[in-house]
């Protein structure tokens, strides 16, 4: 449906699209699915080796009434099956696909509660949790600079995955039984990468060395979003959706690490041996602001009930999304790469209910999306740029299957 679901998310994906829609759950439901996103992105014809993002998603929801007010509570989980968290800090000059390079390989967990105080009004809220990384590395001992394999060094590593949370809210209004209007707010989150490294010891009995490095960076940032959308049953078996999502990209925090380095290597009494050059403290880096621009992303979708019987419904879906890149042209020393993209999606859903009384109702949804990145030449203002001009191009595809059970 081209992600046009703010007013029309009819399964546990409502936890993301619009938490208020969770109030439409009328019984205990469970969902289990798997998705696989493949990135085929290149810079000047050379594959950028962006890893696929794949993993399980699951959800549970239960419903009831509070007084006469229907409510529902749900949880949703995304569990990557390749890595549970991945971070990478690169120099700002190094070309990278800013929005795709290791961004989504993290555990996601969300809990949602929703109520329907009036027949035409639904309200929902939730909290989403992601994992962040902190770590420390200590190296002490003796480094033999003439025969490195004879060095005796001790290492200590201490790393934490800590949780960060951000809020989600949603409201849905049904002015008629054919029309629904939804509004959702998704809070911003940033995952910080905080690393400290310390190296201390003797250098080949010549002198001592002390090196301390502190690195702080934001390894992932998703800006706040406000999504407004409508769903309209244009015919008894046809529904169309239109969403507009305002994304506050201008608040994006540069992923470039801030470094603090301390280096102390006293010169040996006899001076440095021939061929040995002591390192010098790296020059502090001036971080260039990324200056992303806010964007409105339109989504449209259509769903058609190809088969509709009391015990079986087969739905066909299609959608489109246009995402204008929020990253300005990279004409200077930075190389945060992204291009505008067109995303097309198709899907099919099969819903069987009350076939066999002993078995739960089953709904199976298959979805496939294809995103075409608009081929873009990145041109540098300076002919002395060390990266130079290059071409960004590629496509993405994503496939997913979700099975829902109603008990």
């Amino acid at each position: 449906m081209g992600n046009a679901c703010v007013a029309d998310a009819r399964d546990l994906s409502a936890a993301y699209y619009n938490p208020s829609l969770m109030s439409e759950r009328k019984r205990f439901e469970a969902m289990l699915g798997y998705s696989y996103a493949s990135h085929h992105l290149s810079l000047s014809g050379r594959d950028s080796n962006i890893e696929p993002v794949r993993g399980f998603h699951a959800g549970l929801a239960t419903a009831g009434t509070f007084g006469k007010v229907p409510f529902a509570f749900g949880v949703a989980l995304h569990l990557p099956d390749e890595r549970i968290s991945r971070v990478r800090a690169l120099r700002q000059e190094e070309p990278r696909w800013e929005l795709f390079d290791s961004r989504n390989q993290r555990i996601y967990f969300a809990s949602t509660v929703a109520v329907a105080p009036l027949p035409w009004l639904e309200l929902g809220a939730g909290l989403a949790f992601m994992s962040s990384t902190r770590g420390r590395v200590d190296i002490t001992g003796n480094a033999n600079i003439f025969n490195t394999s004879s060095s005796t060094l001790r290492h200590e590593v201490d790393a934490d995955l800590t949780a960060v949370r951000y809020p989600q809210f949603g409201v849905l209004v049904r002015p008629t039984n054919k029309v629904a209007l939804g509004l959702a707010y998704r809070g911003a989150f940033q995952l910080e990468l905080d690393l400290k490294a310390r190296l201390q010891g003797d250098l080949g009995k010549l002198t001592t060395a002390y090196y301390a490095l502190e690195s702080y960076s934001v390894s992932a940032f998703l800006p706040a979003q406000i999504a407004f959308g409508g769903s309209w049953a244009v015919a008894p078996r046809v529904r169309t959706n239109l969403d507009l999502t305002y994304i506050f990209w201008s608040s994006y925090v540069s992923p470039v690490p801030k470094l603090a380095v301390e280096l102390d290597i006293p010169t040996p009494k006899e001076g440095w041996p021939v061929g040995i050059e002591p390192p010098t403290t790296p020059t502090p880096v001036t971080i260039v602001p990324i200056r992303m621009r806010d964007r409105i992303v339109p989504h449209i979708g259509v769903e058609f009930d190809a088969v509709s019987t009391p015990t079986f419904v087969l739905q066909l879906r299609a959608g489109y999304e246009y995402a204008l890149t929020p990253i300005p042209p990279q004409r200077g020393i930075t190389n945060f790469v992204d291009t505008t993209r067109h995303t097309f999606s198709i899907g099919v859903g099969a819903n069987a209910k009350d076939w066999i009384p002993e078995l739960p109702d089953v709904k199976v949804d298959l979805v496939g999306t294809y995103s075409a990145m608009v081929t873009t030449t990145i041109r540098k203002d300076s002919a002395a740029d060390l990266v130079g001009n290059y071409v960004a191009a590629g496509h993405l595809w994503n496939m997913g299957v979700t099975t829902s059970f109603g008990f």
Partner: protein
Amino acid sequence: MRLKLLPVLLLACACSTLGSESEPRPLPPSSGAGPFRKLAADEVPGVAPYVLNSPEAKYRSPSAALDTQGRVSLYAIATIEGQDAVVRSLASDGRSFYGTSIDIGRKPAVVLAPSARRLLSAEVVKSAAGWSLYTLTEDALEVRTSQDGKGFDGPAMRLFWSPTSWMGGVESFGVAEMGGEVRVYLAGNCQIGETRRVGEELVWIDPVSGTPEIEPVLPAKSGEFDCVIDPQVTVTETVDGQALSKMFYIGKTNGVHGVGFAGRFGSDGAFVPNPLPVFRSKALEREPFVLSFDAGALLYLDLDRNDNKEIYRSIAAGTAPADRTLPVYAPYVVD
């Protein structure tokens, strides 16, 4: 009854796969201009980062070109029995030249015989018409030609140019083919100017039209340097079809040398320097020469080598991208 099936569904969540090692990041786009790092042990025979070194020959002023088999011909000035000559060595990987500290019983071949005149700088240029050897002495810039690059002992053509107000004697030079003509870059008084070769004459090109005087294409104050010498210029094309002139040079500040990089779009106008050096070794680098090779670039230059007995000029090499690990050096090749 229906809820009894729930544990079965939850167990299905356990069917996950294990992660694998990340693939290394591919080489990012690069203009092939560095930053360079020194070649490391296992990347050269002998002592890294030297590719041509001898206390007797004192190799200096390197230049290089690919032959028809894709091998690198490395040329350098050498001192032979007290006189200056130009020699040539060969390597399939751009690193394993005979003439390093390992004695294999073979020395680089002489392509310009020793003579009493002192050679300040030399550069070999390969073009569709053949090979040309430009040499700078204290009073002349000469050019000799060859069909195969293996010998330049024919008659020399002396090139001349009119004086400018800012350049005294020429200390070093670089040569490039650009738009069907030969451009010669002359360095003197810490600045670099551009000329067009017309027969035996080098005609100055003013990078700023309308000025009464010929201006340098790279002034003394470039990047973090106060003095520039030793230009090497190549012309390439950007991915979107723009001509790009690249100049590598030696910059000096307070007696410390570094390799600088400057560029310009097209074939005319002043060069824009990159603010930072692309190579620095604290060994009085001179005469950088960059060769595009094997999806990267090799930097040859001469610098002081201290072997604990004496200090003498040697040819060292660097590579870009700097985070690329090169394969172990290849066996020696001979013609």
